[in-house]
């Protein structure tokens, strides 16, 4: 087995090397990426596989003579980072979701990736749709950390079969989906559905946004950011479906106070049949070591008739605090090594994320490699799901209208509270839609948009 693994790895490395040469020219020379200032580069991120990140940073420090200080930030990540940026604190490279990155750019606190010496090469290696999503005024905000689909509708087939349904009965649209949920409940499944209604900043509000977009709607105009929600359109349909679901008592109230870990644990427990989850977590759910109750039985709904979820992604962003010229150069070298290619010309960090956690990348050479197929395939319940995963990934929309605008985070928190109020205080869907449109108008006015 070891011999086969080694051979395969070698083949993948050769393939990646060849692809990299074809896509991005010659690999960078080691001395081009070696740190030289001796000063500390501060790198901060949220808590996710810190062992992997630390391992990558250690490798850079050891092989490139770097002095990168990596630490994680707990709590409300976007707000904490925003305060650090405003205070011009010790921060050089950070994780950011595109909506946050847009806001940071609006505040003038970050330096676009386009300004890297190899900025154009990096941009060219990305899928055009992702590059566009991550650009403001033609400037690329950062380098690819991951791209995935949040809200891919995962299915626990054990629970589905318990309700007397088969794979052929699985729904293909949101309306069919809700019908299936009620049918399953009637068939004796107490909690058929774990909705995306948890309390994180990417919880209930994102759940609303992706359902509206999956139903063919928009929250605002992608260019002008003017509100376009209507009560008789997808937004109204979404809220009416939510109201019915909440009133049916199928959804435990505690979902509203889950953090992300609680939300993942809940689906992992096997109590639920369906849940919109992060696409890459299908690997976690099908891993017996991590999800003993459902491993090997988690599949996903087809994107043949409509999309599921939205494009969720994160970037490595550089700050523009005052630094010495030597440190500035070190920051650029580190972010290029970490977020693009290492000294061997390999997408080492991106490949490792794909291998370890099924985190997709914005870079074509990474995603179109055999290694990507291998990594994804072994995380799935059945081989046919590979194509479904790619379909779901490819069809997921990006809410540019409310994410590529400076008020994105503010509106997101406002929406989160309003949606909770809608559920708990029994507001009318029309009132929520009117209020959401009014809030977007207020924010546009406030920021002169």
């Amino acid at each position, binding site marked *: 087995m070891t011999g086969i693994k080694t051979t395969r790895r070698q083949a993948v490395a050769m393939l990646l090397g060849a692809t990299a040469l074809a896509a991005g020219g010659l690999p960078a020379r080691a001395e081009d990426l070696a740190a030289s200032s001796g000063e500390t580069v501060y790198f901060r991120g949220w808590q996710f596989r810190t062992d992997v990140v630390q391992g990558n940073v250690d490798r850079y420090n050891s092989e490139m003579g770097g002095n990168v200080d990596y630490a994680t930030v707990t*709590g*409300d990540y*976007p*707000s904490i980072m*925003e*305060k650090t940026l*405003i205070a011009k604190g010790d921060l050089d490279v950070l994780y950011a979701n595109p909506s946050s990155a847009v*806001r940071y750019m*609006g*505040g*003038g606190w970050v330096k676009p990736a386009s300004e890297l010496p190899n900025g154009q090469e990096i941009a060219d290696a990305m899928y055009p749709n992702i590059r566009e999503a991550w650009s403001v005024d033609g400037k690329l905000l950062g380098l690819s950390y991951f791209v995935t689909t949040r809200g891919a509708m995962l299915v626990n087939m054990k629970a589905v079969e318990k309700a007397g349904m088969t794979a052929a009965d699985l729904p293909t649209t949101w309306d069919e989906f809700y019908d299936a949920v009620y049918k399953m409940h009637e068939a004796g499944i*107490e909690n058929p559905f774990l909705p995306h209604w948890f*309390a*994180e900043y990417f919880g209930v509000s994102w759940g609303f946004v992706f359902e509206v977009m999956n139903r063919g709607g928009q929250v605002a105009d992608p260019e002008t950011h003017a509100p376009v929600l209507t009560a008789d359109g997808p937004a109204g349909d979404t809220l009416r479906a939510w109201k019915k679901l909440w009133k049916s008592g199928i959804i*435990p*109230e*505690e979902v*509203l*106070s*889950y*953090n992300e870990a*609680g939300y993942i*644990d*809940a689906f992992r*427990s096997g*109590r639920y049949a369906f849940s919109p989850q992060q696409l890459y977590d299908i690997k976690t759910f099908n891993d017996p070591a991590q999800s003993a109750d459902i491993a090997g039985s988690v599949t996903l709904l087809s994107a043949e008739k409509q999309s599921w979820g939205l494009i969720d992604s994160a970037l490595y962003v550089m700050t523009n605090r005052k630094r010495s010229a030597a440190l500035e150069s070190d920051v650029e070298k580190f972010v290029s090594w970490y977020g693009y290619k290492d000294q061997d010309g390999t997408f080492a960090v991106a490949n490792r994320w794909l291998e370890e956690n099924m985190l997709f990348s914005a870079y074509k050479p990474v995603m179109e490699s055999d290694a990507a197929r291998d990594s994804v395939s072994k995380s799935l319940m059945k081989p046919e799901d590979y194509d479904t995963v790619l379909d779901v990934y490819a069809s997921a929309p990006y809410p540019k209208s409310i994410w590529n605008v*400076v008020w994105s*985070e*503010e509106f997101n*928190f406002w929406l989160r*509270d309003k949606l*909770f*109020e809608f*559920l*708990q205080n029994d507001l009318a869907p029309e009132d929520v839609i009117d209020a959401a449109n009014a809030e977007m108008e207020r924010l546009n006015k406030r*920021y*002169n948009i």
Partner: protein
Amino acid sequence: MPSLPQTAGADPAAAAAAARPPRRKELSNLQFALVVTVPVLLFLLVVVAYPLGYALYLSFHEIRFFGGYSAEFVGLANYKAALADPKFWRSLGLSLRFTVETVVLTIGIGLALALVLRDLKPRWRWLRAMIILPWAVSPYGAGIFFAYFGRGQTGIGTALISAFGFDGTLNLITQAAVIEYLALGAAWNMAPLVAFFLLANMLTTPKRLYDLAKIDRMRSYETFWHVTLPPLRFTLFVFTCISTVLALKTFDYIFTETQGGPGNSSTVLTYLLYQISFVNLDLGYGAAMSFFLLALILGTTGLIYALWGRREERK
């Protein structure tokens, strides 16, 4: 027996008085308090004055960070907006509810614990040291602990009902009861400290008072009311004030336990302030609202002092 030499013709009493060292006037309570606290107050003034002054400045301005930093003077507009904001009044109500419940539970549990600890037999007295442990837990840690403890999926409620053979979950973090659950957790965190101080007070009460109570054939609640409680009253007053202030400004514990939820059922004033100032970056409005919180804290403690503290002082 040798005698002290005396001056012929002098008044012995006056001579004795002259021989004594000059008597200094004793400091009054107020003077003593000032001597002890003025240096600290001066230090605090320096440390607090700047941020407080800056917050006041912010509260009269609309602060913008995007499109370049700017601060536009808006007078009392932020204060007026806060008073007209239904979210402010709702959060204020939740803060008061949380505070009253936390204080009652903290003092009640602290007093009960102190009574139990006082009467422990010698071989169980090591428990007096153990009981302080919850207080050593940070509010952040307590929040995470109680979040898991209260959820239906991972919590004690579900464990209990399944121990009795019921299949299902029991969620304690609900819209209806989340404030009470939060108050219970906050009291769990603070009550051991109250218990320790009350216990120290109780142990100074002379045993003969209890013997006299027995001679008078007092019942146990009468003994508690007339013998145990009176020396504790000032400590209880102090901890009521401390608990009130702590409860009104609690943030990290609520942030980690419920994130203001479920939904916004536990969005107390501090959490709302956090959202306004640190999420929305509306620093002027947030600063104005924070002065209402400050006024609430000062007003509440002042009221407690006026109704209770002055009476205790007189005693």
